């Protein structure tokens, strides 16, 4: 009976993994099938010569190049803002917070993690109104406000992954450096953090994915359908998730819809590049630490 139950559980686990794998492969295959044919310079640059667009000699208004760059900039900026804050808060939670403050902050961070993105978008929108009143004509919905709002959205992933990574360090390793006279800060930066980089990277990858896909927040804080390349952080911008949302709800013919699928492939490619970069950075740091 017990053996049957165990075999049943193993079978269920395998079936679940297979289901996830098949779903992912189906989505990728479907995207490639529907949008693969659109991938090319026409999709990215429209009628503008690629070199002119890359050198910013001409703006692209009928291609996805500005949306691609906008997405890259948004994700890098948002995650760049969130990483130091998330790491610091995670370190505080794991290493310094007292029992009471830890309980309270855990609840607050859980609430933050559960906030619908449209609510965070509204908060960002309110911020743009305040900024617009304070600095009339100078600051409104823009790339910076979107990045700030998105960073707020991804912060819980980074805090939680850092906290859990540090808390999972075994006591035998945790006490090694202090036994040699290391200060708590030296222990954190020389031993605990370098040792748990892969776990922290997990949080960074989640944050990248979340930042790249969110539409609700940027819709209220700075993204537009056609803005060209943003020349500063204080300008509106284009982004691939918003383009996908817009085109899938407003398309007038099958060519436009195919562009939406093409945009989805580009978005996945950008995420892949960012995940790979994050992994490479983690492995480089780990290698340097362990040498």
């Amino acid at each position, binding site marked *: 009976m017990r053996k049957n139950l165990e075999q049943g559980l193993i079978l269920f686990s395998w079936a679940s993994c297979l289901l996830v794998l098949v779903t992912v492969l189906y989505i990728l295959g479907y995207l490639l099938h529907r949008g693969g044919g659109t991938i090319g310079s026409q999709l990215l640059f429209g009628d503008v010569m690629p070199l002119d667009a890359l050198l910013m000699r001409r703006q692209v208004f009928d291609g996805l190049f500005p949306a691609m760059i906008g997405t890259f900039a948004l994700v890098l900026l948002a995650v760049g803002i969130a990483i130091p804050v998330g790491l610091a808060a995670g370190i505080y939670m794991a290493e310094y917070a007292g029992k009471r403050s830890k309980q309270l902050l855990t609840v607050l961070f859980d609430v933050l993690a559960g906030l619908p993105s449209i609510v965070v978008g509204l908060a960002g929108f309110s911020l743009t109104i305040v900024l617009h009143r304070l600095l009339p004509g100078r600051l409104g919905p823009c790339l910076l406000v979107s990045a700030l709002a998105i960073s707020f959205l991804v912060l819980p992933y980074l805090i939680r992954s850092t906290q859990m990574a540090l808390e999972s360090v075994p*006591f*035998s*390793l*945790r*006490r*090694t*450096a*202090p*036994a*040699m*006279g*290391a*200060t708590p800060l*030296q222990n954190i930066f*020389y*031993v605990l953090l370098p*040792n748990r980089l892969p776990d922290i990277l997990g949080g960074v990858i989640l944050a990248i994915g979340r930042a790249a896909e969110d539409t609700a927040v940027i819709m209220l804080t700075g993204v537009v359908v056609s803005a060209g390349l943003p020349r500063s952080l204080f300008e509106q911008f284009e982004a691939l998730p918003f383009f996908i949302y817009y085109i899938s709800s407003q398309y007038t013919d099958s060519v436009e819809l195919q562009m939406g699928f093409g945009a989805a492939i580009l978005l996945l490619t950008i995420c892949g590049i960012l995940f790979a970069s994050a992994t490479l950075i983690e492995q480089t740091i780990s290698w340097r*630490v*362990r*040498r």
Partner: protein
Amino acid sequence: MQTASKIITEKLSFFYRGRPVLQDIDLCLPENSIIAVTGPSGMGKSTFLSVFNRLWEESGEGDCRGRVLIRFTEGKPVDIYGQNQSVADLRRLVGMVFQAPNPLPMSVFRNIAFPLQLLGRRDKKEVSEKVEEMLRKVHLFEEVKDRLASDARTLSGGQQQRLCIARALMLDPQILLLDEPTSSLDAKACEKIEELLLELKRQRTLLMVSHYQDQVQRVADRVYELIDRQLQRIC
């Protein structure tokens, strides 16, 4: 030959979550000797060791009472729980080797050099010379000289433990605390560690916890047994 007291405890008591583990222990331990503490498991032998480098404070669950005095240099002994005593400085003077080898997940070289890194000493030549000196001291240099850049966790158990001893010796501590340093090693590795301990005691005081009576008899100058929260001298 009578030697000066290196470690003195006065009414030393330790409580873990309110439960007494050590009670009113008065000791005078001589310098340049090996002092062994034996006793059944779970009686607080490791806790007793952690009192001397205040490592118990890392877990944040304990209360140490009484006085622990150590004579670091010629002159008056210092109260290691005194207000002016820095914990980091104390732990540089009182090194520790744990029961299971605990190399840091980094190379052999960086493991040994780690205590110097903590002090901010980065002169490559000085660090390299010191690393080699320590590896030679624990008779490990010949075995690992071609593997200095390898992950320290790839060494054998005995090599790892000798590496940990070398690391603990890097800052030339005056006292070395050893928490069952051979319990996870085979007979041959045990023998090497024991020989090393006898060499080390010429220049420092070694306070060792061990389960093995025969080992204690071989290396210790003085043996105590921890029973009912008290230390009783048995040899």
